[in-house]
């Protein structure tokens, strides 16, 4: 569990760097793909709501603390998206590479609508047609395009560490059961 969390933390940092430094140099139609959304939705699909919500919270907090004005707004948006995406974990299949793209596209759509509501409508800018053509559509398309590659990496990565974790657990299961640590172990992230 701890090992997996550290790996995800590294993934979050890499995503932040990809989004703010690498992809800003590779803009298509003047938009940057949302690497955080790819990470959060994929984790929701692969690992379930708990991981995705916490990852979303951390990602949002990083954005808030580097670019945002009010701290906590992006954290809120990303947490909600991560949690909702987590329910798709019930139909997770580690060889399915099309469904997650669909989920990522939907999440990006939801993120943009929430962003529009919080950052445009509250400022009195109600031009949804402009927003959808200028930002929403290009971002959804570009994000899904990038996620074709990134999802495979994330899925591959996660499955490897899942195997390592499971291997460790199998070895020490008897001891845990005997001492009654099982309950605490299950309640973690």
């Amino acid at each position, binding site marked *: 569990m701890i090992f997996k969390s550290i790996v995800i933390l590294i993934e979050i*940092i890499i995503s*932040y*760097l990809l*989004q*703010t*430094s*690498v992809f*800003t*140099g590779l*803009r298509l139609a*003047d*938009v*940057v793909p*949302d690497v*955080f959304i790819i990470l959060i939705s994929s984790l929701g699909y692969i690992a*379930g*709501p*708990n991981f995705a*919500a*916490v990852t*979303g*919270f951390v990602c*949002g*907090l*990083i*954005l*808030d*603390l*580097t*670019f945002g004005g*009010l*701290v*906590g*707004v992006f*954290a*809120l948006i990303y*947490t*909600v998206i991560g*949690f909702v995406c*987590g329910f798709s974990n019930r139909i997770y299949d580690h060889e399915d590479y099309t469904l997650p793209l669909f989920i990522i596209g939907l999440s990006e759509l939801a993120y943009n609508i929430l*962003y529009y509501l919080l950052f445009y409508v509250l*400022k009195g*800018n109600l*031009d949804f047609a*402009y927003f959808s053509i*200028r*930002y929403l559509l290009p*971002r959804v398309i570009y994000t899904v395009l990038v996620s074709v590659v990134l999802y495979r990496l994330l899925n591959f990565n996660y499955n490897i560490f899942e195997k390592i974790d499971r291997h460790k657990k199998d070895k020490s299961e008897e001891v845990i059961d005997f001492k009654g640590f099982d309950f605490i172990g*299950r*309640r973690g*992230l």
Partner: protein
Amino acid sequence: MGRNKKKFELSSRLVFSLLIMVSVGLIVVSYLFSDIFSPVKSFMGDFFVPMQKGIAIIGGAISDKIQIFEDKQKLIEENEKLTNELNDLKLERQTLISEKYELSWYRDIYENDTVYQTAQKVVAKIISRNPNGACDVFLVDKGADDGIEVNMNVLANGGLVGLVTETGKNWSKVRTIIADESAVSGRFRITSDTCIVKGSLKTMDMGYIDVEMINLNAEVYDNYEVVTSYISDKYLPGILIGYVSNIRNDASELNKRAYLSPVVDFEHLEAVIILKAQRESLEGIE
């Protein structure tokens, strides 16, 4: 199995509602006490900036390499084009020299206009932009260690880029004049009529932002220069913002409004100049 599933859902809901409560709490706290997160923010900056700097260096190196492989033919064509351009520019230079005398005459009138040219300058590289793809906010690689303070003016290509809104140890955040929340008090260099330059990312896609509140009687025409005015409390006076066009009456018929094309190319900015002089200290000198 069924029991396990139920327990799992319950705990995930607990985690979710906890996170939601924490983020709402953070929003409320940061709304009430806006400065409370600045140490954390500067720590985050210190943490990420070295990595972003590295990426910027690598990216620059890669794009330099790609540049070398450009076609020879293309270079020849470019050479031809540039020679023509050079001839044009030589002619233009002559007219500019004559205009320079005119300019120095204006500067004598507006002594303050030269202040920003004598102020100490720092060149800073842009290391990351707004993750949403817009050009309204970016981070540069110079911070408090280099003497950057909040509200210092940022220039590029001889024009106004924006304002430093936050600084960390080795980074600072710049808000450009085209951001939706920016409004710069401007002045026509020739007629001294004041106006307000309002940022708007939407119209900037078409290459202009709005100038509002121009006096109805002001005799201003297309291609007049707009510079920062004396009445601004943050911007130094006399910095070029851009050129106006499409001057027309306001809907209220009480003011004029116009389009303004900024002199700075915000899409392709790579480095900016930060002026180490603030409006407050200027008042002290006077």
